């Protein structure tokens, strides 16, 4: 039986009159890969922000490794507790080199500069960016920046990693390179990973468990097969497409 890393219970967040996240509950065990999917504006990124501490919930609770972190501030404290994340709109430290970017992540666990740089080197090799180590982060291409964000988040040695659309805007070839990387990371470091993703094929191939969010509510949960057959899920996605059309 694998230990639960994260337990989210009845998580709710309001923005004025809008309920962005409405009573969502789920859990994830170490080394597990979970997909968090749903149509645009469903509240996926808000859930990430609540878990990473960039937002605080209106109600509900978040337990991380037997710690109640519902109101733990600031976000840095959650990173130090063991939650790493990437951002949907990538936020590299633009003026710094690729190596410096990842070193800053590694410094969270290795106060010694030499050790941190060595750790950063390993992570850059892991994501295949070592050749770009002296390049300014802002001059990387978008797929490069997404990898950089992953390397930086991994360098903080999280127990739980939140990946926010790291495959959006990537070509199918690039996706097929990133997928094994994420899987390897979960396996080698025994990290629980939650991915928010719009590329369905990728999510279905990658994740063991999928939680579907629609209008802030959890509408379905299960293995990729179960979820794709769920009429509520189909309706949520088809309904949206019909609306767009």
């Amino acid at each position, binding site marked *: 039986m694998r230990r639960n890393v994260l337990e989210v219970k009845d998580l709710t967040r309001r923005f004025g009159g809008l309920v962005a996240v409405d009573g969502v509950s789920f859990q994830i065990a170490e080394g597990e890969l979970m997909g968090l999917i749903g149509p645009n504006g469903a509240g996926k990124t808000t859930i990430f922000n609540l878990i990473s501490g960039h937002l605080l919930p209106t109600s509900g609770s978040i337990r991380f490794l037997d710690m109640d972190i519902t109101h733990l501030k*600031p976000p*840095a404290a959650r990173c*130090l507790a063991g939650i790493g994340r990437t*951002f949907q709109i990538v936020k590299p*430290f*633009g*003026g710094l080199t690729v190596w410096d970017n990842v070193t*800053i992540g590694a*410094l969270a666990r290795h106060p010694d500069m030499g050790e941190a740089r060595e750790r950063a080197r390993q992570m850059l090799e892991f994501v295949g960016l070592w050749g770009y180590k002296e*390049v300014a982060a802002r001059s990387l291409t978008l797929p490069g920046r997404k990898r950089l964000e992953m390397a930086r988040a991994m360098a903080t040695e999280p127990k739980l990693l939140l990946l926010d659309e790291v495959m959006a805007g990537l070509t199918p070839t690039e996706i097929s390179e990133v997928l094994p990387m994420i899987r390897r990371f979960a396996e080698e470091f025994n990290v629980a990973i939650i991915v928010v993703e719009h590329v369905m094929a990728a999510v279905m191939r990658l994740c063991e468990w999928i939680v579907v969010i629609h209008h802030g509510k959890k509408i379905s949960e299960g293995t990729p097969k179960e979820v794709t057959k769920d009429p509520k899920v189909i309706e949520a996605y088809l309904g949206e497409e019909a609306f767009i059309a």
Partner: protein
Amino acid sequence: MKRWVWSLFILALLSALPLVVETQFYLHIFILTFLYASFANSWNLIGGYAGQLSLGHAAFFGIGAYACAIGSVKFGISPFIGLAIGVIIAVLVSAAIGYPCFRLRGPFYTLSTIAFAEVVRLLTLYWRDLTEGAVGILIPFKPGVANLIFSGKVPYYYIGLAMMALSTFLCYHVERSRFGYYLVAVREDEDAAEACGIRSARYKLYAAMISAAIAAVCGVFYVQYMLFIDPEGVFNLNVSIQAALMTIIGGAGTWLGPVVGAALLIPLGEFLRGWLGGAARGLHMAFYGIVLIVVVMVIPQGIVVTVKNLLKTKATRKVEEERR
């Protein structure tokens, strides 16, 4: 290693200079340059590395100067104790400004520093019993190490040089340390910095406090050198702007930037003032403005970074471009 050799070489050169240069005016310009380079170094910590624009550093500078002057003239205490008191007050004050502001994002810190410097200026103007108001405090000329007053400019030259060397070394060290990396991370993106485990509000506060301490030391040097202090001289917005300006022109967030900026602007300003005379008072400020505009338009990263990029060989630049 090469950097060390160069730094020591320049330091040795500057140390030997007073043996050759005897013109008081030139020594004066060097002393001012050292003073303002140190002051700009202090600004660089919070404004350059941490990216928190302070336009009220005159307040910390002036607090140091006034603490020392009031201490020695009104209470007869040693300027060294006055220095300690000034530094402590400046650090506490900067913490009081930073604590609420660094929790917020936006222009609040900048606005607060401007407002605070103004408040201190007005306070010193009206609290005449203690500060002599607009008349200013004249420090009696009693040379001696205990009084931190010297006859002749050479001792000030060496103290100023040491101050600049130490504060520059501090910045150099910070730039390569975890602390410096964290400050730069906060400057580049606060959300991402937090996600990397950096308590951004705390690190900004540390930077602001260290910065204020150095600024206060500079203030003490100023008053012990000038032997006169008045509110307009130390608390004027110009003083704050100069610190920012020299750093930005030289290269904010680089250890050499403030020194380069000061070495360029202070002599220029002094010579301009000398040539133009009293007829065109303040014209050198207009000139500063023009230089700033040109720098921001042509080399927004400052002189140091631009020169560094120029020195990069064509080959490495080509490699970088291919990677893009």
